[in-house]
């Protein structure tokens, strides 16, 4: 079956953008291909004229620090993220999220850019980056722009950029400062890495007295796109963590999440309960129990 006519391996972003341009809307970026290939083979994705493989573009593999920001190339694989000392130090939640994706062989090819561009409501990488307040750099033929991750998703499998014309080049987020920490938690079937019932990533800045000065909470799947739990964050900001503030936060969280019963995963009631447990654990210093 003809899924595409051309497979192209550009060496620079400009070259890749030119190829997309020539594809006239019927070209598609491919990174690790772990999502795209299955979508195409299982006919969830229409055939395209050209596949443009961005994994040979050096600029997209770079992980670096510049001033007070960390930059992560969209072509970075999950295993490269896991092994990267800069990220281990500054983006614990991202490292943790990447380490939980697929099996070892999948992590060797699947990219963080692909995870985000695929725009699933519970993409592990997306959830972690959202908590990190990351922005994504989108390149088109004429310009480059930064989009906050929160604005990057329109709905399931719908990123807020033009996938047949544009490329997600890299991410950036602030370095971790004193008093700040991040965390990623995932609840799944017993000892299984397979089915995420719920993911949660948080970034917090606490004062020496233990007051939450600032906080970001990201959750999936809790709606059509990865969710920043703004109201919950607001309810916690400026407060010390105790039973009272926590239960207020849980209230807020339940209000702003749209949990559904998924036949594969779990009932709504159970997920609601999990939300409150996970949130509690972010602050109770109780490490999540990972089934591995």
């Amino acid at each position, binding site marked *: *079956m003809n899924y595409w006519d051309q497979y192209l391996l550009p060496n620079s972003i400009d070259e890749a953008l030119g190829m997309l341009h020539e594809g006239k809307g019927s070209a598609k970026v491919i990174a690790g291909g772990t999502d795209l*290939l299955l979508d195409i*083979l299982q006919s969830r994705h229409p055939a395209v004229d050209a*596949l443009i493989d961005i994994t040979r573009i050096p600029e997209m593999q770079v992980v670096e620090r510049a001033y007070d920001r960390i930059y992560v190339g969209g072509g970075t694989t999950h295993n490269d993220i896991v092994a990267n000392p800069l990220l281990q130090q500054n983006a614990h939640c991202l490292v943790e999220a990447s380490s939980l994706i*697929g*099996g070892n062989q999948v992590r060797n090819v699947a990219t963080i850019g692909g995870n985000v561009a695929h725009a699933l409501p519970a993409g592990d990488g997306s959830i972690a980056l959202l908590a990190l307040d990351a922005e994504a750099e989108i390149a088109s033929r004429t310009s480059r722009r930064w989009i906050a991750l929160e604005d990057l998703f329109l709905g399931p499998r719908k990123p807020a950029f033009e996938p047949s014309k544009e490329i997600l080049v890299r991410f950036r987020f602030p370095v971790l400062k004193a008093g700040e920490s991040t965390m990623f938690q995932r609840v799944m079937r017993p000892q299984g*890495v397979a089915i995420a019932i719920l993911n949660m990533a948080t970034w917090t800045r606490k004062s020496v007295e233990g007051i939450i000065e600032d906080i970001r909470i990201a959750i999936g799947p809790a709606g059509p796109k990865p969710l920043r739990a703004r109201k919950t964050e607001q309810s916690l900001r400026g407060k010390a963590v105790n039973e009272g503030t926590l239960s207020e936060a849980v209230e807020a969280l339940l209000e702003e999440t749209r949990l559904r019963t998924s036949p594969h995963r779990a009932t709504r009631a159970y997920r609601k309960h999990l939300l409150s*447990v996970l949130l509690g654990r972010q602050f109770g210093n*109780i490490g999540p129990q990972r089934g*591995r």
Partner: protein
Amino acid sequence: MRIEFTLNGSAIDLNVPDGMTLLNLLRDRLAVHGVKHGCESGECGACTVLVDGVPINACVMLAPKAQGRDLRTIESFGEHPLHGWRNSAGLHPLQKAFIETGAIQCGYCTPAMVLVADALLSKNPSPTEAEVRESLSGVLCRCTGYLKPVQAILRAAAVLRGEQIEEVSELIPISPELFNSLDFSESDYVYGEEDLQLQTKVGLLPQMQVSQDWETRHTVGRPEPKVDAMKLVQGKSAFTADIEMRGMLTAKLLHSPVAHAEIRSIDTSKALELPGVVAVLTWQDLPRVVYSTAGQSDPIPGPLDTFSLDKKVRFVGDRVAFVAAETEDIANEALALIEVDYKILPAFFEAAQAMEENAPQIHDEPEYVDFGDSDAKRNLAAKIRIDIGDVERGFDEADHIFEETYQVPKVQQAHIEPHVVVTYWDEDDRLVIRCSTQVPFHVRRQLSPVLNLPAKRIRVIKPRIGGGFGGKQEVMIEDVAAHLTIATGRPVRFEYTRAEEFYAARSRHPMSITMKTGVKNDGTITANSMICLSDTGAYGCHALTVTGNTGHKGMALYVGDGKYRQSPNIRFYADVVYSNTPPAGAYRGYGVPQGFWAVDRQMENIARALDLDPLEFRLKNALRAGELQPFSTAWSEGREPQPEIINTCGLEDCVRQGARAIGWDSKFGVSAWKDVPGKPHLKRGIGVATVMQGTAIAYLDMGGASIKMNDDGSFNLLVGATDLGTGSDTVLAQQAAEVLGVPIDDIVVYSSDTDFTPFDKGAYASSTTYISGAAVVIAAEKVAERIRIRAANMLMKAGRREIGPQDLRLSDRKVVAPDGSSVTLEEVALNSLHHEDQEQIMAVGSYVSPVSPPPFAAQFAQVQVDIETGQVVVEKLIMAVDAGVIINPLTASGQVEGGMTQALGYGVCEEMRYDDAGNPREVDFHDYHIFSANEMPELQTIFIETVEPTHPFGVKAVAEIPIDGVAPAVGNAVLDACGAAVNAAPITPERVWTALKGSS
């Protein structure tokens, strides 16, 4: 597109078609058969390839991505150390270690494991066990439980670092005296903490309490490497799909999208017009022959209710049409062009609805052939009513009555190699069926009428199999390829996808089981009753026999104590009903795991309610040696039952040693132990289950073997027995070698080819080591006798005094007289074939047993429950088993480890479910999770040997019993940890959470 890359050191430059994955390029274009596949979605890792040294899954990588890369597969590793006059580099240390440690069972995942291990060791020469497990986590293995592969990699790492390591044979902790002094205390192993130094304290080999004869034997009882390991570790083209034939077509099956319908019409014209389509078959093209797909002896003990293709479909995934085309893509395209008009019929998906008043009748075809009490009008595929003793009187005599209902899910065998078959006409116009089957002889017999071809014109060959677990005790897809070869005259290959394995293969029968038990205050069981509703799905293959065994074994263990031992009161009633779901069938354990989930959870509840020691309560009421298997006079797979006395029972030792190993006394009921310091949300618990199985079907299962002596004193052993990765070729060779006094290397095994080997009923009912093994010993004894007679003559002629054959002994490749004089086997062979009074020394043996001696076991589980989320982490599984004499501790413990791992999935996460329209919810390894290497608990095996008198070496079965007790032991441990009584398996976090909510 044109691509260039390096493959195993050679430059490759070729054009690849669009859409080709690296997997297809390597296997189909370049015939690199060491790359396997078990899914099409990046989950199983069987297709692992090293790309610039990094392991990737070739099925989710497009071929063009190989451009400019350096690719390595297993073919670039070592080779057999003996290659004639040519020097051979021999095997790679990883390959050697995989063989020595028994890390290879079916070997289907082995190439991938070796590759990921190589990638790990080249970066990290001294990995921790946790790192090894992490690196293996992307390669699913359904056979081993990962313990031995992990050990293999650690061992190879040591070798590569230049360290001296002990031979595997030196590691065995056995001998009768040694056993008692062994430290069976618990290892202080922590799971789930940062420091993941798992299992390093647990040895590679099982702990064993061996029988007296162990020391007198030279190969039986020893950890011999598997006879097929050499080819498997090299990734040789040994599996069904690994052959290339000119003009071979690819077959595809059109599956029903609806759960219940009549086919009004099928239009295949568009599909046939598609270039490259060679044949499309519908029910109108085939003879209408009713049969059963269950691979069983004649007569099939179940209803005949299946056609190769029918004008009715009975579940989502049922067969509608067959296509054969030049390529897989064309075949798939053709499927989409077949137009079917369905007349939709009402359908149901719950067993409980099957016998309701207005339930739709699933089998209304006039050809339907009943078996026993089956009744298609009532959707009843089988019915069992067994009363032993007087159950009602037993209840009257009880002080307490316990009644509870338990559920078990439908689960998949999930062998990593899918079902696969290749068919072709040979030069004699005989149809060759090369297939991944557990029952080659049944395939030939059962397909003969379906194909309208005499059995003598069919040859079935079973090559290596990538796991079966019962899923391949089924004549399930062979007919598809065979019909298409008949239609086209061309070779045809047909292989299931992973999705098809889920929606159109077989599974374990889901059941709802109600237990009622009468108990006296002192814990004596006075009566025990099981009422079982079993769902066979749309077809009745194995319907009667699987569910029969639920009672036959599950309900036989607890006879009661005192006078009840002589006359137990046991009831087992079962209805096995049809539903519009994919058929259930045979799956390792064959109904017994279902039974023990209910029986053992019930025992635990009783022990707790009456405050009885759970171990003593079970032992008090359990069957003992010298007693009658209570069901033996009541039921025998639909045949005439005959009384069977239990000759050997090591259950008590199993319980005691297993309890010691898990530290029962310091944990059970010790509340301080249950708490996890600093983690109030975690609770620990411990649980036990005691179980029994059978060994073959008495008076029915027959295995044959023949042994032929060669010029050099080696032997060909031909067996019908079917090694599906279990190691049966190896343990059969060991038994022959023991009798013939030769090392196992001198036995050349060839198995399962209907043209060349004697009959064997096939690999099921845990029978091969026992039944086929006895046949091998009989044949070997006959050969040994001929050898002794000839050797006696030779020795006399050489001037010795009178020597009788009975005085001679075969040992060390020689025939030895009492005075120490000897002739070699090679001399005997040359004498018999070339020198005097020439004859071919050769013999056939066959065996059928009057009994089905049960193995017994105690299975222990230790868990940690997160009482807030309900998540269960199983930390440790220990199995102490009396499986008679162990022929090979490596392969036998491999069976136990792998069985426990499958059973763990049954206990905690595996489940197949359907939506309101009968569509399957789980069709891949993403939604249907099977355990990976980094999720495993600690596994420990203890063998308590008894000597079963009905087998020449004292063997009983070991393959199925590990499946029986894990789920209930885990369930009991969860109950112990936090009081959550989860009566429905699997014990998912949500079920635990719900149970906790209910109990608080």
